[in-house]
């Protein structure tokens, strides 16, 4: 019986959150566009022919402007730019999501630990967070991806390990707010241990904020991935938006005026990052009542 009531309440709460989120038109538009892009990326092997990605067996001549056969023209090897952009979404999204999960995971653990355990644990963790916060993350990511073996896993690691401090600070502040409330004192008085307090009280209170923050982190991760790939640090065998732009510059196509080679991957990055930012900001206003009424 009680379980049914709990679920009913949860459903009602979720519906409330959704109503508030849907009231934000920018956030809703961002979510719809994101869903379309993710769907296209996932379905890329089904709706397109991957043999067109082969450099040695390219269907067109190099650097053809847009035409009926190649709606977005061809790249330096004669491959369709539309096809490359579509497949590039897979790597960019994969790295973006995976790096974000890593980053948010580290940030949440460090943040909760720094907020929950006082004294020297908090001291050391805060010092470490501040250190990584000021460290130029691109330079550190470059260093990591140079010394580790080249590949997608390295890029994920480099982006994830360098971007967690903002999450950690946010989570720590929220943990401190929650732990100052009387019900935590009650839980402690009743004999709740660290695990109980963190797992049952702090984590559920922190998670909504973490979720909103996560969508904002994804955008940053995608930009970081494209930057590292642009510098030639990505997986050489995988097509990503950053590596397309790198090829466009290094092959001289940019100075040659091949705008169709340059616009699609760049616009794709801008659109996807903007969508994540819109969704993140909308979620933030839902979970953080203090932000309501501000723009």
């Amino acid at each position, binding site marked *: 019986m009680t379980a049914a009531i709990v679920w009913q309440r949860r459903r009602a709460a979720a519906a409330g959150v959704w109503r508030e989120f849907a009231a934000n038109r920018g956030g809703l538009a961002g979510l719809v566009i994101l869903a379309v892009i993710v769907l296209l990326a996932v379905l890329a092997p089904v709706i397109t022919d991957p043999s067109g990605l082969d450099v040695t067996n390219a269907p067109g001549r190099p650097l053809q402007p847009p035409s009926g056969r190649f709606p977005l023209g061809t790249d330096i090897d004669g491959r369709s730019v539309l096809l490359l952009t579509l497949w590039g979404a897979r790597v960019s999204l994969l790295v973006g999501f995976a790096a974000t999960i890593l980053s948010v995971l580290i940030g949440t653990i460090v943040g909760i630990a720094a907020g929950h355990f006082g004294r020297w644990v908090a001291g050391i963790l805060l*010092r470490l967070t*501040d*250190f990584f*916060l*000021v*460290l*130029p*993350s*691109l*330079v*550190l990511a*470059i*260093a*990591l991806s*140079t*010394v*580790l073996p080249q590949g997608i896993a390295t890029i994920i690691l480099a982006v994830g390990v360098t971007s967690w401090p*903002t999450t950690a*600070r*946010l989570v720590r502040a929220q943990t401190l707010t929650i732990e100052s409330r009387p019900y935590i004192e009650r839980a402690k008085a009743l004999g709740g241990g660290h695990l109980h307090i963190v797992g049952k009280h702090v984590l559920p209170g922190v998670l909504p904020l973490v979720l909103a*923050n996560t969508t*904002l982190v994804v*955008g*940053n991760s995608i*930009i970081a991935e*494209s*930057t590292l790939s*642009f*510098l*030639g*640090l990505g997986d050489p065998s995988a097509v990503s938006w*950053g590596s397309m*732009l790198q090829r*466009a*510059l290094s092959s001289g196509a*940019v*100075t040659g*005026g*091949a*705008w169709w080679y*340059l616009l699609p*991957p*760049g616009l794709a*990055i*801008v659109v996807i*990052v*903007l969508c994540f*930012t819109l969704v*993140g*900001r909308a979620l*933030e206003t839902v979970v953080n009542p203090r932000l309501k009424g501000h723009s």
Partner: protein
Amino acid sequence: MTDTLAAAELIDPDERPGRTGTARFLLGKLGGAVTSLLLVAALGFLLFRLIPGDPVSTLTKDRPTSPEQIADLRARLGVDKPLWQQFLDYVGGLARGDLGTSFGYNRPVADLIAERFWPTLLLVGTATLLAVTIGLWLGVRAAWRRGSAFDRTQTGIALTLWSVPQFWLGLLLLIATHGLFPSGGMRSPDAGPGFFAQAGTIAYHLVLPCVTLLAVLYAQYMLVMRSSLLGEMDAEYLTTARAKGLRDDLVRRRHAVPNALLPTVTLVFLQFGMVVSGTVTVETVFSWPGLGLLTYEALRVPDLPLLQGVFLVLAGSVIVMNLIAEVLYRVLDPRVRAR
């Protein structure tokens, strides 16, 4: 956006000094910065010496070498000593300003960095100066007419530029101006040797990289100035100023803006980390011969000692810049000092 504000709020309220004196505050901040610098040095050693393993095997990968040559090289690079000895040598070298020798250039890393420092300073300095001027002006106008068409377009443009990868913006500018400006380098080989001819050709080459960096940097100044001024808008002293009969733009110039300026002043220093990453991509796109391009050249080889040197110098300067920001904030804001 949250990032923008997070950067401005780097000076955590609960870390602000209490009733303790300025000396103690300064010592605390200085100690923190020194710890961070030591951590950077340790991280540099970990990243470039411990993870990649033996540099000798990398160096001799494609060349036939005798065991004697390898032994000689190991002794010259100091990798035949125990690890703790290597670390002490490394720290001692850092203390003397010795950053090792570049594999690719076969020259001292410190010399290479010193050579490439000035072009970067010129690029970053010009872009920052313009970004501050334009960003603050736009931010003040947007906040003062909050919700107007000007405010909405400008905030929209700033947020969009925020989502644009810097290098792509550079590539777009290259293709949009189509040969109007030089596509790379810092000066033309056929420019005259005179001072004005040289300054002219450098300025001509500076335009595109500077505009690219500017487009990314100004947005943050604008958004922080806007939200800071919005915070002051309802303040009672503005009502007082208006009640005295001051004209609207005098209220803005003399009363609101000076108070709202505070967070943006320290932003110049706090933003330095972002400027550093900007120089790497922008200098790569435009082959501007600064520290950013040096980083790119080093990672292509990969030239680990050079990369290590650049990492240490860039990370170190960001830490110093943050220290300046924190101290400056206290000097500038009497409210923080008095608490």
